């Protein structure tokens, strides 16, 4: 179906053609080179250029890009950093990239080092400054702290209440001392104390008794603190100026960003090239390239290789059973918008069914039910389609935006169906616009606000449909694989059983005839399931018991079905919050002059908030229903995606 058929290709060529063939294949971008079948030869081709050298260059370039990013004058907005626009380039221009980044790289390194030096110097100077401000009032040059031949001097800082105790103790010991007092910071006092050298120890004892210690300087200084502070401030100013000049210069380098990005991608694609070369096998005269290619692209490969020369052979075969084949999904363009959902969950195995077409339809509808409002849907659809068409963003982002936009279209449909147009706003239109109200009511089929039950039943019904589709897919899958017994006994039987139960329930409500038709099928289903589900057991009693036990699965089907009630709840939730927005806005509507403006702003803010949160909820829950309730019926992931050898780029889009 929608998983592309793959072929395994092997090319044996003369060494002289190796480079040419690889160039052609990279250009073509349709072959994923693998390194299996190692047992054929035992030697690998060693690449002509050191991969390590390329990795070093890539590292240097990403350092440069980080540097530019760090010092750029205007930071990027969220939108730009989330959806960066690619650089468009012709292939020839890209391949002839000759940007010599080394001088700039070295300059960046120097600047970075200089900036780091400045930063650490600034730190040191600032902490000195802070220290000096504490002792700013001291009017003695600090070089005198060292003392003289017969004296020692030091600086003390202590709270004033210790002053008396200190004076007393010093008096007690009868020391020869001199002091000058200065006001300190934080209510402390500063003492410049000079004592005779011989009494240093006694002084230390006194200080220890009062648990005081002399102020120690972080480094030797000269001059009074006031002079030092002036000097420090001057030097800090100079450094800051130097720093801002450097940062300014660094910010200017933004103009090279594009070149750096191109060079980065250039080396990245070179790296990819030589990395692929290491996967090739060789003999003395030949090399062997093996890989996967989509069946339809096979002629392309042969044609492009034949342009290189004649000394080669190519063979191809279908994948063998049990081989791990890369998976590439192929769908029409509408379904493809939703392929991101399959990728998020994990790709199917090569032998599996591609769930994307089913996921696309269900997600479209579920998202619509969860958002459930015509105007919200319109806003989302318009902004999604316009953004995807006009913005210069990567293809995968475009797909995602288009998926959301289609979800918006779903919301328009469902909103029309449930009569939610910005909640109930259309009921409050002035008579001149009453035709819109009539239009809204005319199109409305179910009114979940006044009568929620039909909408709830509808949600569960949609869920049952998806579950039944899931079971049917399991039947088809097993049938295709030839497991007829599994297909009929494990899946088709449940399908019929569940359908008959639904028929019976509907029958009770609507027509007794339907119920009476369904009842025998239900009984038959029970008997069939009890009879077949225990077939793996040997003991007849165990056969019966495990058959009986399998009926318990009905509970899990019931749980799955009830889980779809969220479609109703989320849809109703966005409608009610929209009504809340209208009501809150109208509270301000009565104020004179600008009341209408306040009302409009309040309502708009609330509507925007509701659109964002309900949109998030709609995406998350619609996806969850696919993954948890739908996929567990039939789906096995674990496929690895097809990554053809080509120009792997991060910033550049080659045209």
């Amino acid at each position: 179906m929608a998983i592309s058929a793959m072929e395994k290709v092997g090319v044996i060529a003369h060494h002289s053609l190796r480079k040419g063939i690889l160039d052609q294949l990279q250009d073509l971008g349709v072959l994923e080179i693998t390194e299996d079948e190692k047992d054929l030869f035992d030697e690998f081709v060693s690449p002509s250029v050191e991969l390590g050298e390329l990795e070093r260059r890539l590292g240097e370039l990403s350092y440069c890009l980080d540097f530019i990013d760090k010092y750029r004058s205007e930071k990027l907005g969220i939108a730009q950093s989330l959806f960066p626009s690619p650089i468009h380039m012709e292939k020839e221009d890209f391949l002839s990239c000759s940007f010599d980044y080394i001088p700039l790289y070295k300059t960046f390194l120097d600047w970075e080092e200089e900036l780091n030096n400045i930063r650490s110097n600034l730190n040191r100077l600032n902490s000195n400054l802070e220290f000096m401000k504490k002792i700013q009032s001291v009017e003695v040059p600090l070089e005198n702290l060292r003392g003289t031949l017969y004296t020692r001097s030091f600086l003390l800082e202590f709270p004033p209440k210790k002053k008396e105790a200190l004076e007393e103790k010093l008096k007690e010991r009868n020391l020869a001392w001199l002091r000058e007092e200065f006001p300190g910071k934080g209510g402390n006092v500063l003492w410049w104390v000079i004592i005779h050298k011989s009494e240093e120890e006694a002084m230390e004892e006194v200080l220890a008794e009062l648990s005081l210690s002399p102020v120690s300087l972080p480094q030797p200084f000269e001059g009074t603190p006031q002079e030092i502070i002036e000097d420090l401030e001057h030097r800090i100013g100079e450094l800051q100026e130097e720093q801002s000049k450097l940062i300014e210069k660094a910010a200017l380098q933004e103009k090279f960003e594009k070149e750096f990005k191109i060079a980065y991608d250039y080396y990245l694609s070179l790296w990819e090239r030589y990395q692929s070369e290491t996967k090739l096998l060789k003999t003395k005269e030949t090399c062997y390239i093996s890989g996967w290619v989509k069946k339809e692209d096979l002629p392309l490969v042969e044609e492009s290789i034949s342009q290189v020369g004649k000394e080669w052979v190519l063979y191809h075969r279908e994948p063998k059973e049990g081989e791990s084949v890369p998976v590439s999904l192929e769908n029409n363009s509408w379904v493809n918008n939703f392929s991101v959902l399959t990728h998020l969950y994990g790709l199917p195995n090569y032998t599996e069914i591609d769930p994307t077409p089913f996921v696309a339809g269900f997600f479209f509808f579920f998202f619509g039910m969860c958002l459930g409002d015509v105007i919200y849907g319109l806003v989302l659809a318009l902004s999604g389609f316009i953004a995807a068409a006009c913005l210069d963003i990567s293809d995968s982002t475009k797909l995602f935006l288009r998926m959301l936009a289609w979800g918006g279209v779903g919301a328009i449909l469902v909103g029309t169906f449930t009569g939610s147009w910005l909640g109930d706003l259309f009921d409050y239109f002035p008579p001149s616009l009453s035709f819109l109200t009539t239009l809204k009511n005319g199109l409305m089929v179910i009114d979940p606000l006044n009568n929620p039950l039909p909408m709830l039943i509808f949600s569960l019904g949609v869920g049952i449909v998806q579950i039944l589709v899931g079971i049917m897919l399991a039947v088809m899958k097993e049938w295709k694989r030839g497991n007829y017994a599994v297909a009929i006994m494990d899946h088709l039987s449940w399908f019929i059983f569940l359908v008959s139960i639904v028929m019976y329930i509907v029958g009770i409500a609507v027509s007794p005839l339907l119920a009476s038709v369904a009842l025998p099928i239900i009984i038959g289903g029970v008997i069939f399931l009890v009879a077949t589900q225990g077939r793996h057991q040997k003991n007849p009693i165990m056969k019966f018991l495990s058959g009986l036990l399998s009926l318990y699965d009905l509970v899990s089907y019931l749980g799955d079905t009830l889980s779809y009630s969220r479609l109703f709840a989320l849809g109703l939730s966005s409608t009610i919050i929209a009504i809340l927005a209208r009501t809150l806005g109208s509270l301000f509507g009565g104020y004179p002059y600008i009341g209408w403006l306040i009302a409009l702003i309040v309502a708009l803010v609330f509507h925007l908030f509701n659109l964002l949160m309900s949109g998030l909820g709609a995406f998350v829950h619609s996806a969850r229903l696919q993954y948890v309730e739908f996929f567990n019926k039939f789906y096995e992931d674990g496929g690895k995606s097809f990554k053809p050898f080509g120009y792997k780029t991060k910033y550049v889009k080659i045209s």
Partner: protein
Amino acid sequence: MIDGLAFALLGSALAIGLAGIGSAMGVGIAGEAGAGVLTEDPNKFGQILLMQALPGTQGIYGLLAGFWVLIKLGLFGGTPVEINVAQGLQILFACLPVAIVGLVSGVYQGRTSAASIGMIARRPEETGRAIILPAMVETYAVLALLATILLLNSIQV
């Protein structure tokens, strides 16, 4: 004398208040984890913000239920309805599912979001799956909202 209105308003207040607390705690837990990741890699702001917003829905469900009660009582731009004590109590009880489940599930969803944020930090390519895990917790808040809506709808005033 207490009339039914007081009980009904208590129900509305509990729905908005408790579910709001649950969301506030959940968003807070997720935000703490998110801030840690953002210090390392500011470029992930978009994804992290999305993950932080996930436990925010309980508060909205609570607000919705509380608001529905107010509409039902005609307190929002309609004619106020007279209700007796029994009806008031009925409305109070109908509000409890979304209030209680909102409170508890908000916290747990916040924790799961925080764990998923850690997952995004290490494996950014797994963002899709990381979003689904907290959504599993939210299922029960949605079911509680559903219960509250259906219960409220069945009360005649």
